[in-house]
């Protein structure tokens, strides 16, 4: 068997998805992006001579992961504290696993998205999803690309920009006209913010009034918030809405998931304590609503956290959406202001 010639050298960065693994390889005259789908592989080649730009953008995904992992870690620690025996061990192990994942995520560093541009293609490089890997890969690729194309002189860049009339500065809201992004009115975001505030108020009421009616209203408002949140998440994709407002909607999704998990845990606890009510929904709702948050410290902690998070996200969302709508209205009154 003849030994195969090694013409590709692996570049830093790897992304493992549910189906595929993305890697990037340095070839003699091109960059090879491999999308490995376990039993098959797809290849994309980018010749060094054709690469116009590599654009790296920092994202907040890593911070969101940290937040979610941190919250789950604290959550399991809180569950472990009042527990005894096997339960305490299980919750501590779960907390440990989330802590480990958090530490790994912290070690991997900030996240980013990396794109490669040629004259006819604009491709995302999924393997470069961490900033330090993207920097390392660009550091390796830069000399290879410059060897194939030569160096870019400031004069050449100046001439190019003069030719494209791009010397003007771009204002904060000017981007919509230039980018052609869809305008989003933000009404769903406003409705979500209001629902979150209402939800916070109802949780506050539920703390003191242990009534099934209040619990049902709380569930109804929560479900309505989930529906509006999904619509807002869909509508904000590719829209001109503030990034901060988009992040608020994503944070609401994280809160709602947490609320659902907590609700499920509480319901399961009630069912385990009273197995007879397991098949009777009304009895179960009554039993859950009769639990006073003042009976256990972690239950009280969850209530306080939910109230604070709902108010925080609701107020932030309302302020941001009001500012966004006001700014857009002003832009429409005075068109052509640059």
């Amino acid at each position, binding site marked *: *068997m003849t030994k*195969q010639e*090694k013409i*590709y050298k692996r570049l830093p960065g790897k992304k493992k998805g549910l189906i595929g693994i993305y890697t990037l*390889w340095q070839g003699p005259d*091109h960059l*090879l992006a*491999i999308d*490995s789908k*376990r*039993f*098959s*592989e*797809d*290849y*994309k*080649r980018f010749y060094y*001579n*054709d*690469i*116009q*730009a*590599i*654009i*790296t*953008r*920092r994202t907040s995904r890593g911070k969101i992961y940290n937040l979610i992992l941190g919250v789950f870690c604290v959550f399991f620690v809180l569950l472990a504290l009042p527990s005894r025996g096997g339960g305490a061990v299980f919750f501590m192990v779960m907390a440990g696993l989330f802590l480990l994942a958090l530490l790994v995520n912290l070690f991997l560093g900030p996240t980013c*998205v990396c*794109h490669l*541009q*040629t*004259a006819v293609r604009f491709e995302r490089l999924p393997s470069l999803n961490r900033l330090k890997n993207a920097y390392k890969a*660009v550091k390796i690729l*830069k000399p290879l*690309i*410059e060897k194939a*194309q*030569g*160096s*870019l002189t400031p004069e*050449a*860049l*100046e*001439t*190019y*920009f003069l030719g*494209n009339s*791009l*010397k003007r*500065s*771009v204002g*904060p809201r*000017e*981007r919509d006209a*230039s*980018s*052609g*992004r869809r305008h989003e009115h933000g009404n769903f975001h406003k409705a979500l913010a209001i629902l979150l505030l209402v939800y916070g108020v109802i949780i506050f009421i539920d703390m003191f009034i242990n009534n099934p009616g209040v619990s049902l209203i709380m569930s109804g408002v929560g479900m309505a918030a989930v529906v509006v949140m999904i619509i807002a998440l869909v509508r904000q994709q590719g829209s*001109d809405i503030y*990034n901060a407002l988009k992040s608020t909607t994503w944070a609401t999704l994280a809160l709602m998931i947490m609320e659902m998990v907590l609700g499920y845990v509480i319901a399961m606890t009630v069912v385990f304590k009273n197995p007879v009510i397991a098949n009777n929904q009304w009895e179960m709702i009554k039993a859950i609503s009769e639990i006073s948050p003042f009976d256990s410290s972690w239950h009280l902690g969850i209530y306080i956290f939910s109230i604070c998070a709902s108010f925080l996200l609701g107020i932030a969302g309302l302020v941001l959406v009001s500012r966004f709508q006001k700014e857009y209205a002003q832009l429409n009154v005075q068109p052509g202001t640059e």
Partner: protein
Amino acid sequence: MIRCTACLGPLRRDIFNTPGLTSCPSCSVLIRADVFPALVREQPEGTSGEVLAIDDEAGCFFHPNKKAVISCDACGRFLCSLCDVEFDDRHLCVSCIETGRNKHKIKTLENHRILYDTTALALAVIPMLFIWPSILTAPLALFTAIYYWNAPTSIIPRTKVRLVAAIVLAGLQIVGWSVFFYYLATR
């Protein structure tokens, strides 16, 4: 034009080729753009081929009324400047490129490969965990490993360890099942 990948707004010249991240002037996300001379390079215009002026000049195989400028390095057909494709330091005609692509003769044109070694190994390992399916999958794994022994695997060179492991595991399973059925028959 280089655009911000978050807001799609055009990026300013002063944020190109900076050592670290810079704020996008439109949406304020932290971004870094490494640009290269290909951005400012003029794209060469395509040529349509020169029309034959006199009859004794060689014409293109695909366009007989166009003047041949080169012959295909693979098949030798005369090509006009429109049909000449410069590829991997060779001048090829479109039909040779198509054939090379279909028959996997031009490695740099391949954009998809099936990993038979991984498939054979998966067929040998995964059903083994559920025991009974391996009656069918063990011979299948053995067949796949042997039949595709010389088939190209990943474009990144890899050893035949997966195929060997698949053959060994599938062989052991077949032996195991044979012994089991023999035992059942002779009990």
